[in-house]
């Protein structure tokens, strides 16, 4: 024991209950572990299956399943598994005499119950394994709130800083210090109703409303009609208070409070609202039906993510957001959710869409005859007339009632200009101000207006040389806002961790631990390095042999991965940056077209050598 406290003192021996992700899995495993009481769902299933047991069926209860597990077939109190049982027509059941192979025997009943129980528990276990595998790849990119590492949100935030556009997070209109707003009260209703539900009821509620209350309404799956109607009504009331009408095109996500029930979260977007598991920990199975009625698969579905037709009452017009995936904030911009292009602008579109065709496209280039061209096509600077910048009817979007500013007089005195506080708008404003100033004035070289402090210099350039000439000239410094470093080696490590994960190995802490080839894959599983020290030391030797080779390829792989990731994830962001730099470059390039004064001292003539002036 390392450490000074004795363990008995340090760790009180009370039943432990933590609230980490680990505790969630541990507690659920312990409560569903074989040989313990079966879940309500499995018990119901077994009771139902036993209704057609043997030839007459047998009526049993959940308690009988416990008796079967405990092996209590006959008891003195006459309430053992094989005592006082009725068949489905209500007559007393006479068990056949014999072992497990005799139909209708007592041992056969116990055997069949236990076999069903084991099979069901095995299926649940496999289902959980399956969902765990899916979690391991998808949770952080699922674009749902209340989880760690919200990739979608981070992407959108960066975009917003640069362009001022993109989906926004809408604050929850809640009270503080215990004061409850009407919205809070509706939320409390939902919270209390959920807190009173069993795990099975919670499963049903999440299954029905995972993809949204309005989606459930639209799709109108008859199997859900009577499922968790209380929660249905709570969500309906919340939608009303939040002003969510189910418009599938509305964009924006509300920040929502946490629920009391563990591992379950309430989400609300401007198009819909619903419930979700924070960490999906098991698969919930409803009664299985043949999937031929709903949803209907159609051959020419308009996007890859949801090739289904709608049977519901009012299918959304934009099929790109038909699927749950594509209705999410960032998900709707992914390639799976884009409609397949039929025609492309500026192209001859000769193909018929059924084959790969080469098409000819032309791009129009706009040129101006004279004068600087600043912020072309960018119309985000407005007159400040007292109107709010944000559309009150559509938060997160510009107010359509705003008047565009006169870009030629952007910095004139008394001119009030209003714009979003983002990098591009600011840059545009600066550029336009510079343009206006330059077009109204001419510069005298080597003078710094700030150093002169608005006073007339005795050393006018045209009269006598300035003895302090150049003294106030400041050396340009490097930009104080460097772009973040290129984190190449992190990406290499990241790649390797994905590589490990892909091959079924746990992410390794140190670079180079995850070697791989087809034949060795099985022996690299997680148990071996842990439990089998021979394999571990063998692993080290093999890695030692392979280390150099791996290091050599890692660098080039890393470069490739970094490139791929940058292109995919940061394309939009860098497009903004490129535009911005383009604007600034344009500004300075265009300045040479501005009518600058050609002579140093236009009002006295050409520059002369030093001569005392009067």
């Amino acid at each position: 024991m390392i450490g000074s406290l004795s363990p008995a003192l340090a760790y009180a021996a009370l039943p432990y209950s933590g609230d980490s992700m680990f505790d969630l899995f541990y507690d659920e495993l312990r409560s569903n572990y074989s040989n313990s009481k079966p879940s309500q769902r499995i018990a119901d299933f077994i009771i139902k299956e036993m209704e057609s047991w043997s030839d007459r069926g047998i009526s049993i209860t959940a308690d009988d399943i416990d008796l079967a597990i405990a092996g209590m077939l006959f008891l003195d109190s006459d309430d053992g598994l094989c005592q006082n049982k009725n068949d489905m027509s209500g007559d007393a059941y006479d068990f056949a005499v014999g072992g497990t192979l005799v139909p209708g025997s007592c041992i056969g009943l116990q055997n069949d119950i236990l076999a069903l129980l084991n099979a069901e528990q095995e299926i649940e276990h496999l289902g959980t394994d399956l969902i765990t595998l899916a979690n391991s790849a998808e949770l952080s990119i699922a674009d749902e709130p209340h989880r760690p590492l919200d990739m979608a949100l981070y992407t959108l935030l960066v975009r917003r800083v640069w362009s001022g556009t993109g989906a926004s997070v809408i604050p929850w209109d809640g009270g503080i210090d215990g004061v409850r707003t009407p919205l809070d009260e509706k939320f409390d209703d939902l919270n209390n109703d959920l807190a009173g539900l069993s795990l099975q009821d919670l499963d049903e509620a999440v299954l029905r409303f995972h993809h949204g209350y309005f989606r459930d309404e639209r799709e109108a799956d008859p199997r859900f009609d009577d499922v968790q109607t209380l929660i249905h009504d709570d969500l309906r009331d919340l939608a009303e208070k939040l002003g969510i009408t189910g418009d599938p095109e509305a964009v924006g996500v509300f920040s929502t409070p946490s629920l009391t029930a563990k591992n379950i979260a309430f989400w609300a977007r401007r198009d819909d609202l619903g419930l979700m598991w924070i960490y999906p920990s098991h698969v919930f199975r409803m009664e299985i039906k043949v999937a031929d009625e709903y949803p209907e698969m159609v051959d020419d579905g308009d996007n890859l993510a949801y090739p289904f037709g709608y049977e519901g009452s009012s299918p959304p017009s934009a099929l790109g957001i038909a699927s749950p995936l594509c209705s999410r904030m960032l998900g709707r911009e992914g390639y799976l959710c884009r409609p397949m292009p039929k025609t492309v602008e500026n192209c001859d579109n000769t193909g018929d869409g059924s084959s790969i065709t080469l098409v000819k496209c032309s791009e129009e280039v706009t040129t101006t005859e004279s004068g600087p061209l600043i912020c072309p096509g960018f119309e985000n600077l407005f007159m400040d007339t007292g109107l709010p910048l944000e559309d009150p009817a559509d938060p997160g979007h510009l107010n359509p009632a705003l008047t565009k500013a006169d870009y030629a007089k952007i910095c004139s005195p008394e001119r009030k200009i209003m714009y979003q506080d983002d990098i591009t708008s600011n840059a545009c404003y600066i550029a336009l101000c510079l343009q206006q100033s330059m077009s109204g004035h001419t510069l005298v070289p080597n003078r710094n207006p700030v150093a002169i402090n608005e006073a007339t210099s005795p050393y006018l350039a045209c009269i006598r040389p300035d003895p302090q000439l150049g003294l106030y000239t400041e050396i340009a410094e490097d930009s104080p806002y460097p772009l973040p470093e290129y984190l190449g080696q992190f990406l290499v490590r990241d790649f390797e961790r994905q590589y490990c994960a892909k091959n079924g190995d746990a992410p390794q802490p140190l670079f180079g631990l995850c070697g791989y080839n087809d034949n060795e894959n099985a022996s690299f599983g997680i148990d071996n390095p842990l439990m089998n020290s021979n394999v571990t030391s063998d692993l080290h030797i093999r890695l030692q042999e392979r280390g150099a080779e791996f290091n050599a390829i890692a660098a080039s792989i890393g470069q490739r991965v970094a490139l791929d990731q940058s292109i995919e994830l940061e394309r939009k962001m860098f497009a903004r940056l490129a535009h911005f730099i383009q604007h600034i470059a344009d500004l300075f390039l265009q300045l040479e077209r501005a009518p600058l004064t050609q002579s140093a001292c236009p009002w006295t003539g050409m520059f002369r050598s030093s001569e005392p002036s009067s």
Partner: protein
Amino acid sequence: MTIRDFIITGWHDGRRMVVRHRILVLTIIVMFAAAGSSRFVRGNILGTGSSGGLGNSSSSEQSLRACDSKDTRFEDVQNIDELRNIYRQGMTAVVSEREKILKTPSLWKCGLGAAGEPPIAELRALAADIPGWHYRVDTSFLFGAVTVPVQRPVTFASFASIVAEFQRGYECKLSELQDRNLAEVALNNDIEKPAQFCCVTAGDSQGCREQADVGICETPLTTNPACNEQCPVLLYMSDLARRVPALHQNALDEREISRVAMERMLSTMRSFEVNYAVARQFVCYQRASLDLKNEMSLLADAVSCMPKIWDAVTSIHDKKQ
């Protein structure tokens, strides 16, 4: 050659010698540094010390560490419920810490290497209690050499390995308990806590039993499952028949449940971990962008005064007519 020439030459040679000597010293230092650094690099890559040169440690000694609870948090505890609590508290601490870090981008740091590591105090504390997370190196001390334990690097990325090693320690302890189940039952260590014990007389024997199991206690209640030396634990054959297999099964279940829970946790965490590096870049980029945005805002404010400044002093620039 004159004497003077000789003296000058000799002086030159002497200086060269000093220079050569310095190069030699420098070379030795560089060689030592290289030897040391290559050891650490290899140690980092392979997770072991190197197997040659100075400060070697046997890699087999590390890899072939026996499956026992020596030097772990579990070493001195024999009650299975207490063990479970120690295990779960350890797991909860590091998993909660990690969840919190992943949920809180304000904890992420934008530096490179160690400067980019988020705060992982719980993970370090857990690693400090894991014998497998140390290796020993020889270091010269006075006229001999001593072996000192060196903790392996604990980084944000070490999580899976540290947790797995902690799990190994727990499972080894549980299997020790299974091996010793008879002995532990004989010490009442299988009884779930909190429980109280006392001395009873039953027939012609007297002994220590759980209070819930007996009628009248002859001694004050104690939480010590073995009461005291005057009153040894009293067991019946039926106790052994019932409690020994139960303890065995309990430990077996616990080994399986804890292992599966850990694997599910690691798998679920994996999604966040593989995207953490990219997410961190985004957040760092956003921070830089916010700075840039604020500077641009200030610049815009300043620039709005530009026409006024330039109108003020006619002596340094003209109004264009």
